């Protein structure tokens, strides 16, 4: 069995960690970061806000970069993402 079981509902998702028994909620930005990082494993931390900003049709400014960093931290904390 895979460690993580993921179910997406529209632009959000929920994740079950079979190792810890914890369940996590992925908000739209966090889920988009997760799927993008899976699609583009070569993507680095600086490229992530740019790619995501394009997807969400917003400016890749400092506040958006901060939101992306937070999403990245939460994915790393869950264990769904290793450092970009």
């Amino acid at each position: 069995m895979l460690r993580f079981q993921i179910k997406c509902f529209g632009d959000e998702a929920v994740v079950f960690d079979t190792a810890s028994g914890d369940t996590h909620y992925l908000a739209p930005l966090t889920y988009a970061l997760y799927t993008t990082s899976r699609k583009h494993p070569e993507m680095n931390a600086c490229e992530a806000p740019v790619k995501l900003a394009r997807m969400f049709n917003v400016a890749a400014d400092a506040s958006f970069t901060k939101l992306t960093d937070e999403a990245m931290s939460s994915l790393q904390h869950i264990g769904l993402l290793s450092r970009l």
Partner: protein
Amino acid sequence: MKLLQLSATDLRKQLAGPGVWLRTGPFSLKVQSKLPRVAEGLLELYGQFEVRDPNLAFADFHVEINSPGLLRRWFRPQVNFSFDGEQPFKPLPLDQAYPMLEWGLNWCISMHAHQYLIIHAGVVEKNGLAAILPAPPGSGKSTLTAGLVLSGWRLLSDELTLIDRKTGLIRPLPRPVSLKNESIPLIREFSAEAFINRASHDTSKGTVAHMRPPKESVRRQHESARPGWMIFPKWTADSPATLTPRSKAQTFMFLAQNAFNYSQLGADGFRVGTHLIEQTECYDFQYSRLEQAITTFNQLADRALDSNAA
């Protein structure tokens, strides 16, 4: 044989002796009690339920509700709930004997029936689809459940939504509906057909009474229902009845945090819960008038019927 076919005297004798065997939804119970209030409650509320010979039939849960000792029969009389000889709760005043039986039965099911994912929610059915009503205390969940079942919806359960882990269907558990405080006169006024037993006062939930489940809901207690909606009701003064779509992922998170046994079920709880959410439309629901709320629910059920027919 139905419980109402037992005379009051026979019921009391059986309760005080070998116990009364009862079938409620997928569970069988054996209840023993020497207390007249418990006999009265069972007679008034469980008349339509199947009973069998308690000496011959297997029971899932053996429960007893009695006074703790001789002294407590006279001085501030109290009652104890026992399950398989163990007492999981502190004693309560004698006036709360009947609600304590209902609370105790809820506890037995939610702690042991892990063949189901058990959500703390009312659940009602119409046109083959079930509306699950999870909500914190005070949100008007039981009042709405009572209003709906008095208006043609089938009662599946007032407190415990049982999701069958194998089929994903909802198993009915149509036991009496617990009403609190202002809900009691409100439901009495709402329908002359509602039978509500005598109230117990000063409980941890305030004044509590139970409404008899409709005969038809008890008759159909072995018919499972397909989940259709997850609706979070909230009574709000002067609010028109309003359904607002809510995030499915966040609804799942609520379910994961509020189901009685989600964490015990591990990955299978996740599978069953996400499958449930996938099948249902999820809404927040504000209302102030019961009649308007029922109209809104009927519209949902009619719309589902139309789309199935199309």
